[in-house]
């Protein structure tokens, strides 16, 4: 291997071997331009033509900030008109690109469109409210808070599916984590013990999934769904028989303290979301970054992704496919379990039935929207958290829009996001396909 390294052998002229196969044109569909156009027209009619006449006021700073920024006040009708015209322009540009050059819009376009649409929507909602003023800082901080369990859940999904196992049981893992955190923290009087126990509980739920999906090759979706029902039933039963019987002893976990990093937490808007969090909140940022680096920059990640894409190839290179999958699924469960502890150790300090409220499924959507990438999943989860938070804030300030419609918002966003706006995303090739040797 070493001696001949420099001696080029009987060098024959080699023709160009790296010719690529025919311009493998990915489909350029009308879906995205048309979706954008429809949304832009809706925006123009509601936010523009039918826009409220008042002024929308957005508070930027909160009381604790070390310097104060003035609140932003915008005329609702005018800005609604301007923003919706921008939206029409963007959609028109996408349509023209498709019609004239059969080209897809540039990557930034859907992102910019989404941001402008959300801003216009906010102005419309706030401008038409009884008290036309909200705190932007509070809105964003609240969004992050609501997103925490969704982020953990979607990270769990990423870890499992990158290794090739579909994890529908995220909901069950969150719920299991939430319950165990409450129980253990109550009994030990130590919320950190609860946090640890939540990770263990999530991992245990996941191990059941791994065992059936990998060892016994049971359909992964079915095992996942069954696990969700199982965990829901089990925690519900224990809640009524144990926790409710002696809530002081078994269901008063106490909260994890909010750790306020001096000075930094006083930065307007981003201070509270980055530097005024509980341990779970900080862990979320750490988990996103560590999992991203792990998956894409390390040996471990290369192997995990290979196992999820082409398990046979991994096997022929001496990588233990099923062991890798098993431990990844277990790790995913632990991550989701920590997310579950958020419900009972941070958000409120007790467990109730079905406290996870379907966020495990939203987490799945966030994972897909984030294209199986930890950072993508994080931002997707933030979007869902934002929709969730907006819904409650908007109900408080009193808008003409019925609150039932607002309650639907997170789910509408999910459907739009997953089905339309992102285009096609590609899951790991062996996702959900069991690997049987030989």
């Amino acid at each position: 291997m070493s001696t001949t390294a420099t001696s080029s052998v009987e060098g024959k002229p080699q023709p160009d071997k790296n010719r690529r196969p025919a311009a493998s044109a990915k489909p350029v569909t009308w879906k995205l331009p048309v979706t954008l156009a429809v949304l832009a027209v809706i925006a123009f009619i509601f936010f523009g033509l039918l826009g409220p006449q008042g002024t929308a006021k957005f508070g930027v700073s909160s009381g604790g900030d070390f310097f104060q920024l003035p609140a932003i006040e915008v005329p609702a009708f005018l800005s609604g008109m301007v923003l919706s015209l921008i939206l029409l322009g963007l959609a028109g540009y996408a349509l023209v690109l498709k019609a004239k050059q059969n080209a897809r819009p540039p990557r930034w376009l859907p992102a910019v469109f989404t941001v402008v649409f959300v801003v216009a929507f906010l102005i419309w909602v706030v401008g038409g409210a009884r008290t036309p003023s909200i705190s932007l800082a509070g809105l964003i901080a609240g969004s992050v808070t609501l997103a925490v369990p969704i982020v953990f859940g979607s990270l769990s999904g990423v870890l499992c599916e990158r290794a090739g196992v579909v994890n529908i049981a995220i909901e069950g893992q969150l719920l299991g984590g939430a319950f165990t955190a409450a129980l253990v923290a109550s009994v030990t009087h130590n919320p950190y013990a609860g946090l640890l126990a939540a990770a263990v509980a999530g991992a245990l739920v996941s191990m059941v999934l791994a065992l059936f999906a990998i060892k016994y090759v049971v359909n992964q979706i079915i095992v996942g769904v069954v696990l969700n029902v199982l965990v829901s039933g089990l925690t519900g039963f224990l809640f009524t028989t144990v926790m409710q019987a002696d809530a002081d002893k078994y269901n008063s976990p106490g909260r994890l303290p909010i750790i306020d990093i001096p000075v930094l937490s006083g930065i307007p808007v981003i201070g509270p979301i980055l530097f005024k969090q509980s341990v779970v909140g900080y862990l979320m940022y750490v988990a996103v970054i560590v999992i991203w680096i792990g998956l894409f920059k390390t040996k471990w990640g290369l192997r995990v992704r290979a196992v999820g894409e082409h398990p046979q190839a991994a096997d022929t290179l001496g990588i233990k496919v099923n062991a890798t999958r098993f431990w990844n699924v277990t790790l995913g469960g632990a991550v989701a379990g920590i997310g579950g502890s958020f419900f009972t150790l941070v958000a409120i300090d007790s467990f109730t039935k079905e406290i996870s409220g379907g966020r495990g499924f939203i987490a799945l959507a966030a994972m897909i929207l984030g294209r199986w990438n930890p950072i993508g999943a994080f931002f997707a989860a933030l979007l869902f958290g934002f929709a969730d938070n907006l819904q409650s804030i908007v109900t408080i300030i009193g808008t003409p829009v019925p609150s039932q419609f607002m309650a639907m918002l997170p789910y509408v966003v999910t459907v739009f996001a997953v089905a339309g706006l992102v285009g096609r995303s590609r899951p790991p090739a062996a996702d959900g396909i069991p690997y049987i040797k030989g």
Partner: protein
Amino acid sequence: MVRVLKLELKGITKRFGSLVANDHIDVVVEPGQIHCLLGENGAGKSTLMNVLYGLYEPTEGEILVDDKPVTFRGPGDAMAAGIGMVHQHFMLVPVFTVAENVALGAETTKTGGFLDLDDTRRKIREISDRYGFDVDPDALIEDLPVGVQQRVEIIKALVRDAKVLILDEPTAVLTPQDTDELLDIMRQLKSHGTSIVFISHKLREVKAVSDTITVIRRGKVVGSADPGASTTELASMMVGRAVSLTLDKAPAVPQETTFEVKDLTVIAPTGQHVVDGLSFGIARGEILAIAGVQGNGQTELTEAILGLHERAHGSILLDGEELLGRSVKDILNAGVGFVPEDRSLDGLIGTFSIAENLILDRYDQAPFAKGISMSPAKVLENAKTRIEEFDVRTPSGSLAAGTLSGGNQQKVVMARELSRPLRLFIASQPTRGVDVGSIEFLHKRIVAERDHGTPVMIVSTELDEVIELADRIAVLYKGRLVGIVPAGTGRDVLGLMMAGVSPDDAQADAAGKSPAGLPAGLPVEHPADTPATNPAPAAPSVQEPSSGAVGDHHE
């Protein structure tokens, strides 16, 4: 120093349940040799290599490396012992880069487990330069042509310091030109001291590069052969009886053209024009072979004719009637017989009985059906006749079709399609994965159908088969028709056409390249082994015709 390695398989037996895939096989691979394992599909070559590579555990027998017995618990052990393998279906992750694929499983890391791909890139460039591979370490695998992907596989093995390289049917996916380059690479590897175990059933290639040939039949070693042996000798060793490699076929008597494809374009879901403006006609009593490397629009062409493709434009005329836009059932009833390329997926229902499979296209017609009820007796009776007529080796027509061997399954499909009056017969890959004995039979049936006066279209990626059967050859490249050439066109010309070179250029190019009158398959120069004056050292005793319909088959 280049370490050489002697590899010995002693009494290897591998059983899967009652099936004996390998039966006491002894093979010795001497250092620095190209050792060919020759055998038909299903003879047990791949099983043997999977045992050697640690993917299967042998039921009996042992593996010796440099005369010391070793046990491989997995591919990792085999690689550590210096054995590398290039699988028939590439073991590459399509969404990874070349470097990531090469690094996988043998990663160089910086502290903390971080990947050091730069190191891998350097190794790839080093090997790539040494053998003239010209591989870009940062290219995505899915963007690379198959030939280059194969080189990546070889690099993967070399990076792991393989001293013995197993190549499992490496030429199955290559164009004739790529194949020649691969054979050159094999010679180069040999000259660098790497032994090669070359698994193949293609006699031409085996003769061109091997130093030793071990013939395997039905899981047993039936002997070794000299690379100088004639193709006929090798073929009969492989099959176990005398086989005629040339097909006795009378010259075609083409009549009027009854089947015509005009300006056919098929658009894939991706928006790509997978068949692009295709026009050709087939006369009654003529076989048109569609040649081309896999994935150049052949599948979509046959699907479009059968009415299986939604986005097909143009015109497909059979006896003046338009087929395009009609339902599959309509088209079948119009007298189109179709043998699909993947029989187990599209040709048969494996869990249905042979008898049921034989009437899949006519289950609702007399005499098999009456009103809403079927007549099982008639179905079985039909099966009996067909099984006899097509020599399907099975104890009973009520067995599940999935239990048959590849060749017999294909006979069932062929029997079904040929048992009604046809106005067009299409067979896609009619003998893929079929034993040589059955190939002979299937080919005869196809020619018989032609002589019966049916226009016949054969789609095959095997050049040998195309040359054997065709009266005219149409070559497809990227969905376009490169040209239609008469039977008897040289294999080298066809090979160039399969790479997209126009027939005229291909003729000129081929004439310039083989001055010694050798077929392109035996490269004129490979300085690694021999002086250029002896152009075909691996097969000195064989004189091949320079062109002609029979290619390398001669008596």
